[in-house]
């Protein structure tokens, strides 16, 4: 150890002058969680988050998804769960701030409402994505398309009525 101690007097120090010199995180680093443009506001990430850091709030006609970096444990579960890569962990790790309120990332989506009972169905983008994914499955047909602006409970009532009529007609 003695020789190395003497020799390292003349070597460049191993330490980096961060924060004066940048010390970037490698690619694939699980840093600041941020919503991307592909986010449709479906709320799957909020359901799965172990630390319950992602909250979904419906205000008036917009749905607000907010990830609180104070709670987030940067585990990447949301990123793995999101079917449309709507949320991702960037390589930013410098989140120090004096104001606790600024430590979050938010995204807003326009909601659509049910004609039957006026309740919230989901965000418009999410409905488009659903139709897109079931379009090539061939389920969409002309009269079916009129129903999708009903919320799930109204839809159930609607189909129940349809079936009971068909049965009463049939008997």
């Amino acid at each position, binding site marked *: *150890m*003695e020789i190395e*101690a*003497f020799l*390292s*007097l003349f*070597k460049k120090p191993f330490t980096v002058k961060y924060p004066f010199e940048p010390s970037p995180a490698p690619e694939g680093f699980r840093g600041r969680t941020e919503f991307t443009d592909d986010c449709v506001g479906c709320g799957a990430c909020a359901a799965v988050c172990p630390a319950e850091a992602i909250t979904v709030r419906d205000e008036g006609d917009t749905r607000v998804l907010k990830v609180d970096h104070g709670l987030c444990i940067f585990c990447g579960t949301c990123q793995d769960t999101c079917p449309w890569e709507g949320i991702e962990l960037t390589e930013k790790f410098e989140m120090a701030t004096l104001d606790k309120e600024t430590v979050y990332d938010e995204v807003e989506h326009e909601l659509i409402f049910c004609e039957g009972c006026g309740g919230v169905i989901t965000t418009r983008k999410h409905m488009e994505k659903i139709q897109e994914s079931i379009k090539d499955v061939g389920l969409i047909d002309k009269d079916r398309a009129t129903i999708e602006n009903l919320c799930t409970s109204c839809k159930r009532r609607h189909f129940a009525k349809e079936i009971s009529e068909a049965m009463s007609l049939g008997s």
Partner: protein
Amino acid sequence: MFPYRWPVLIRVSAVRIGDLMDVQPFISVLIVPGLLFTSVMAFLYAGMYRKVRARMQNRRGPPFVQPFYDFIKLLSKDSIKPEKSGMLFTWAPIIALASVLIVPILFPIGGLSFAGDLIVVIYVLNVSAIMLAVGGFSSGSPFGAVGGSREVTQLFAYELPLAISMVAVAVKASSFSLVGIAGAQEAGGMFFYQLPFACIAFLSIIPAKIGLQPFDIPEAEQEILGGPFVEYSGYRLAIFTFANQVKYFVVISLAVILFFWRNWWQFLITGFLLWLLFIFVKIISARVKTDQSFVFFWQYMGILALVDLVRVVI
């Protein structure tokens, strides 16, 4: 309105004092080997210690004047006095600093000197070591007490070989004053090859004297949280650490004067080189336990110093 009279007043009084009494003792006490020079050198030694240690550990390390910044910062912090601590809690650091500052005044580089000042040096250095122990005891915390008792046991351990080697040098130079010793070395060549054993004994005691590894047992921060320093803060801690830093400089230069003296500028250079050697020893050795240090000092170093004393006396 700026009092214009002041500069005139100062100039006039300086002239009158100048011829009234000899100014030289003021200079030597306050400036050259005294307060100003020693404190600058102490801060430099401490700064170098941290910088060289860092470089040897592949780190960048703080700037050279960091100890000066620390001193100023500590002065601005408030100093908490524990309830159970005695009156000596405040006085211990001050006496330690005062006793350590006396020694450089006797240095042969233009300082005062009188017949038996080597004895004063031995006594005064012990006062500062004891004050460290007193500070530990008076702080009222068990860690301080353990630190204090360790300091005293270590004091006994290294006191014997230290005194013997100093006496050997004094007998060799047949004078008990630093200037006399320096003069003898200027005439007859450096003492370290004439009294090799005493020199080895003295050099190996220095780490224990100033609290560097492998013998910094009193301030073992991992075991007893810094020993005597545990309850100190604010200006009291500033004075204590400054006293310690001055001790670094004083003990190293004492070694240079006793064994490696040729002239005053060579004194400075050898001081730095010796200091580098001790930093190097510090960073490559672990801290030994009290009983191991006791054995090391009493058996090995004691005998070495004795051999040289006998050799000189005969």
